[in-house]
């Protein structure tokens, strides 16, 4: 054969190509949600209670919508629009495709998540009227949003069904207010919210560790189930 034996790109290169593809197709909506998140940081600097609380609502909404867009546009639509066969005809396995999707989705979500987390810490430390005692409560809530995103992503990847993704996302989003009330009801957390300094109590560390373990467990579980599949279209 005179035909050249084509060398396959490295995994890192493939993941980069997949990430660039998804970024290229979704950059404008994702940037718009990020902009909303940044606006929310500006709103919570207000001493007006209505604007201040609106800022938190916009911030949480930006995180939820950002995650929903990632799940539906990058994962569910790949199946619904039948573009998955096109991607899987490229030199990669289904597991590599799954890892690439997860890396892009988690990575993109973390960028916004970290920007907003950092922003809250910055705003809290720079504004006298904002109480640092709120920070543990805020971080746990953001952690919950991270877990909810990863759970929805996992269900979307495993079930490849927008119905299941909507069900899980709805349950997670409806339960956020219940979760926030429950967290505030924990004495070492709720009791410290009005203080000038943050109280990183064992309860806070325990909840954050639980959220981190859930995220890791969900990601590993998803990869395990993806690797056991025998049909990819």
């Amino acid at each position, binding site marked *: *054969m005179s035909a050249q*034996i084509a060398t396959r790109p490295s995994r890192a290169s493939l993941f980069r190509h997949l990430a660039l593809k998804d970024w290229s197709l979704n950059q404008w909506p994702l940037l718009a949600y990020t902009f909303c998140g940044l606006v929310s940081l500006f709103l919570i600097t207000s001493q007006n209670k209505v604007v201040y609380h609106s800022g938190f609502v916009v911030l949480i909404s930006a995180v939820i919508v950002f995650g929903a867009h990632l799940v539906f546009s990058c994962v569910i639509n790949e199946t619904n629009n039948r573009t998955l*066969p*096109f991607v*899987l*005809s490229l*030199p*990669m396995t289904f597991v590599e495709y799954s890892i690439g999707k997860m890396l892009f989705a988690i990575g993109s979500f973390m960028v916004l998540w970290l920007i907003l987390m950092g922003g809250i810490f910055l705003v809290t430390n720079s504004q006298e009227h904002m109480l640092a005692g709120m920070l543990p409560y805020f971080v746990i809530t953001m952690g919950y949003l991270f877990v909810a995103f990863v759970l929805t992503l996992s269900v979307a990847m495993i079930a490849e069904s927008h119905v299941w993704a909507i069900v899980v996302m709805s349950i997670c989003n409806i339960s956020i207010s219940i979760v926030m009330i429950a967290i505030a009801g924990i004495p070492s957390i709720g009791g410290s919210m009005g203080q000038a300094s943050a109280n990183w109590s064992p309860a806070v560390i325990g909840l954050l560790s639980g959220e981190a373990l859930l995220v890791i467990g969900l990601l590993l579980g998803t990869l395990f189930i993806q690797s056991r599949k025998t049909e990819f279209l």
Partner: protein
Amino acid sequence: MSNQLAISMDGVSKQYSHFRLDDVSIQLEEGGIMGFIGPNGAGKSTTMRVIMGLVLADSGEINVLGHAIPDDQARAKMSIGFASEDMNLYPTATLQWHMDFVRSIFPSWDQQYADALVKRFDLHHDLKIKGFSHGQKVKAQLLLVLARRPRLLLLDEPTTGLDPVARREVLDELMEVLADEERTILFSSHNTKDVEQLSDSITFIDRGCVIESQDKESYLERWRRIRFEVPEGSRTPTLPGVDSVQKAGRLVSMTTGNFEPDMPAILQDQGAVIHGVENMTLEEIFVAEVMSSRQGEAA
């Protein structure tokens, strides 16, 4: 044509709840062009997907261009161009975006050829895919596959749903590709005219089973329709190896996939008046094969 196998499937089975791909074995030499024919739901797409590693077989062995599938599918795919009627491009992206994306992954991408195909297929590289007609989408898919210069082309129903002009353009381009003797092509279709035009070997599949796999010329040569008349009061003559017999009064049309030159004489000896011995089109053979296979199953 070399004697190395581009595709080797041996005893491949896959069980679904209402369908079974059953003990499928296919061998396609490098440089060969195989038409893969079967009715809707026969297992053509499933077989293609198994070859691509997109569906894992329950049993059997698959080797593509020297790579074991599914274990070594990623490396095999570097040399495979796969297009399918079930495949869509990204609707909100332009053809140019797709070309850039594929080019970034395949070093073998031939930009000159891609540009030539854009012109030949009358496509617009700055138009979003959602603005393309069905025919243009199929041609765009084919362009993305051909311009990476793969050693093996797997085309699942490439001409389905195309208008006559688009179909002609796609077939003409495939005919040009065929000029490259090192390029292997497996294409599925239920359009036997396309297969007859392009392929040098044929595989029939029905209800998940391969019922025939042979080179086209000797295959067509094997099949004949013998038309004859039976004198009044005589019994219809019989022959071994006959696939179907249709009667209309005293006129009989006998179809055989095992034609021998002395068959008309044998019929004449039994009293038949031969009206003609006709070659059959691939479509006629296809229908006869499938019906014969199904009757065999029912019996």
